[in-house]
C-alpha cells in the first residue's frame, strides 16, 4: 500500500516532465495522481510526503486554471506543515492559498486562510501572526465585509497585549471601532472603545486614556451607551486615586461583557496603583497652588 502512492508520485512526476517523447505535460492526469498519492500518504501517516504531494497537486490545479482547487490543496498542505511544525512553510502555504482565493474573487476564504495561519503562529512567531491578521482584515475591508473582521481585530489586539505592546493593542481596538462604525454595530463599537481605554489605563498611560475618552465622546453612539458611563466612572476613580471604586467598576457587568483578555486586564487594573495615587497627590498640589 505504501508503495502505491510512491509509484503514483513517480508516475505523475514523469507525466509533468517534458521530454523528447512528451511535448506537453499532462497536468490533469498528473494532478489526479498527486491527489491520490497524497491521500495514500496521509493514510500511512507519512505527512512529509503527503505535504509534498499536495503541493504538487496544487500546482497542477493552478496549471489547469482552477485556483479554487489549488487553494484547497494549499490549505491542506499548510495544515500538514502545521502538524509538522514547519512554521515558515505554514505561513507561506497559507499566504499562497489566500492569494489563490483572492484570484477566485472569494475574500472570505482568503482571510480565513490568513486567520488560520495567524492563529497557528500566534505563540511561535507573534510578529508574523500580527502581520497576517492585519492582511486578513484588509482583505475583508476591501471587500466591504467589515463585520467578519471584528474577530480578527480582537485576536490581533490580544496578541499585542500578550507582547505587552499596549499602545498598539489600543490602536487595534480603535480600528475595530472604525470598522464597527461602518456597519452600525454600535454595541461592538462601544465595547471596542471601552477596551481601548482599559488597555491604556493598564499601560499606566492615564493621559492617553483620557485623550482617548475625549475623542470617543465625540461619537454619539458611544456617548449614549453604558460603556461611556463605565469609562467615565473608571477615569474619575483613577483621577481621585480611589482604588475601591476602580475595583468595583472592574467587576461591573459592563466590563465583564468584554473580551476575556480585557477582563483579565481590568481585574488587575489598579496595578498602576502607585501611579494613580501619585497623580492624585500631584493634582492636589496643583489645585492648592492655583488657589
Amino acid at each position: 500500500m505504501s508503495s502505491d502512492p510512491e509509484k503514483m508520485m513517480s508516475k505523475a512526476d514523469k507525466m509533468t516532465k517534458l521530454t523528447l517523447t512528451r511535448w506537453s505535460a499532462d497536468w490533469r492526469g498528473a494532478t489526479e495522481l498527486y491527489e491520490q498519492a497524497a491521500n495514500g500518504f496521509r493514510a500511512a501517516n507519512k505527512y512529509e510526503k503527503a505535504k509534498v504531494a499536495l503541493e504538487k497537486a496544487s500546482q497542477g490545479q493552478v496549471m489547469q486554471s482552477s485556483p479554487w482547487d489549488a487553494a484547497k490543496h494549499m490549505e491542506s498542505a499548510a495544515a500538514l506543515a502545521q502538524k509538522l511544525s514547519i512554521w515558515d512553510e505554514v505561513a507561506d502555504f497559507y499566504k499562497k492559498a489566500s492569494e489563490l482565493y483572492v484570484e477566485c474573487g472569494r475574500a472570505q476564504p482568503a482571510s480565513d486562510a490568513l486567520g488560520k495561519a495567524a492563529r497557528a503562529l500566534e505563540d511561535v512567531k507573534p510578529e508574523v501572526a500580527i502581520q497576517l491578521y492585519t492582511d486578513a482584515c484588509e482583505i475583508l475591508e476591501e471587500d466591504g465585509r467589515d463585520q467578519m473582521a471584528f474577530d480578527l481585530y480582537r485576536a490581533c489586539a490580544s496578541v499585542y497585549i500578550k507582547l505587552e505592546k499596549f499602545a498598539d493593542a489600543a490602536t487595534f481596538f480603535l480600528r475595530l471601532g472604525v470598522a464597527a462604525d461602518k456597519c452600525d454595530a454600535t454595541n461592538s463599537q462601544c465595547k471596542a472603545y471601552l477596551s481601548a481605554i482599559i488597555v491604556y489605563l493598564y499601560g499606566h498611560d492615564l493621559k492617553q486614556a483620557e485623550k482617548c475618552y475625549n475623542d470617543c465622546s465625540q461619537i454619539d453612539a458611544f456617548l449614549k451607551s453604558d460603556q461611556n458611563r463605565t469609562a467615565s466612572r473608571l477615569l474619575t476613580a483613577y483621577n481621585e486615586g480611589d482604588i475601591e471604586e476602580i475595583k468595583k467598576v472592574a467587576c461591573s457587568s459592563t466590563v465583564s461583557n468584554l473580551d476575556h483578555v480585557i477582563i483579565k486586564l481590568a481585574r488587575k487594573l489598579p496595578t498602576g496603583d502607585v501611579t494613580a495615587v501619585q497623580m492624585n497627590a500631584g493634582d492636589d498640589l496643583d489645585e492648592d497652588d492655583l488657589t
Partner: protein
Amino acid sequence: MTVIDILTRVDTICKKYDKYDVDKQREANISGDDAFARLYGAFETQIETALEKAELVTKEKNRASAVAMNAEIRRTKARLAEEVPKLQRLAVKRVKGLTTEELAARNDLVLALPARIEAIPDGTAGGPKSTSAWAPSTTTSRPDIKFDSDGRFDDDYFQESNESSQFRQEFEMRRIKQASGDQGLDMISEGLDALKNMASDMNEELDRQVPLMDEIDSKVDRATSDLKNTNVRLKDTVNQLRSSRNFCIDIVLLCIVLGIAAYLYNVLK
C-alpha cells in the same frame, strides 16, 4: 384653527377693546403723571397678591410647598417694608392738581401701609390656626437659635417635632424595608445588564449573518436551476433509451437469435 391662532386673535381683540376697560383706564389716569400714585398702586397690587398667596397656603396640604410659599410671602413683605420710606417721601411732595386734604390723606395712607404689610399672614401668625389638628403643647423658647421673627416660630416648631418624630420612626422602618428591596433590585439590574449585553451581541451576530444568508440563497437558487436542467435532460435521455421502438427491435432480434439457435440445434441433432 390652532391654539396659537386663537391666542393671537384674542390678543388683538383685547388690545382693540382696551380703551373700554374702565378699571385699566382709571389706573392709567391715576398714575398718569403722579409718581406717588403709581408707586402706591404697585404697592396695593403686591399686597393683594401676597394676601392671595397667604390664602393659598392655608389651603395647601403639602408642607414643603407651604413652607416655600410662606418664605416667599415673608420676602415680599420685607421688600415692601423697605420701599415704604420711599413712598413716604413721595407722599410729602407737592404735586400740581392736588388739594391739601388729599395730601394729608396720602400721608395717612402711607402710614397705614406698614401695618397692612405686617398683617399679611405668612405662616407665623397663622401658625396656631394651621396646627389646630395637633394638641398645642407648652413650649420653652430656644434662645440660642435666632430667627428674624424673634422666636415666634416656637409653637410651630415644637408641634412639628411631635409629628416629625412620628415621621422619623416611620422613616427608619421604611428604610430598613427598602434596604432589602434595594438588594433585590440590584440583583435584578445585574441580570438585566447581562441580558441586554447578550441580546445586543446576538443582534450583531444576526446582522453579520444576513449577507451570508443572502449569498447562500442565490447560490442555492443557481444550484437548483442547474439540477432541474440536468434532470430534464436525463429524463429525455432515459426516455429515449426506453422508447418502445427500441424495445420491440430488441425483442424481435432476440426472437430471431433464439430461432436461429433452435434451428441449428435441430439440424445438429
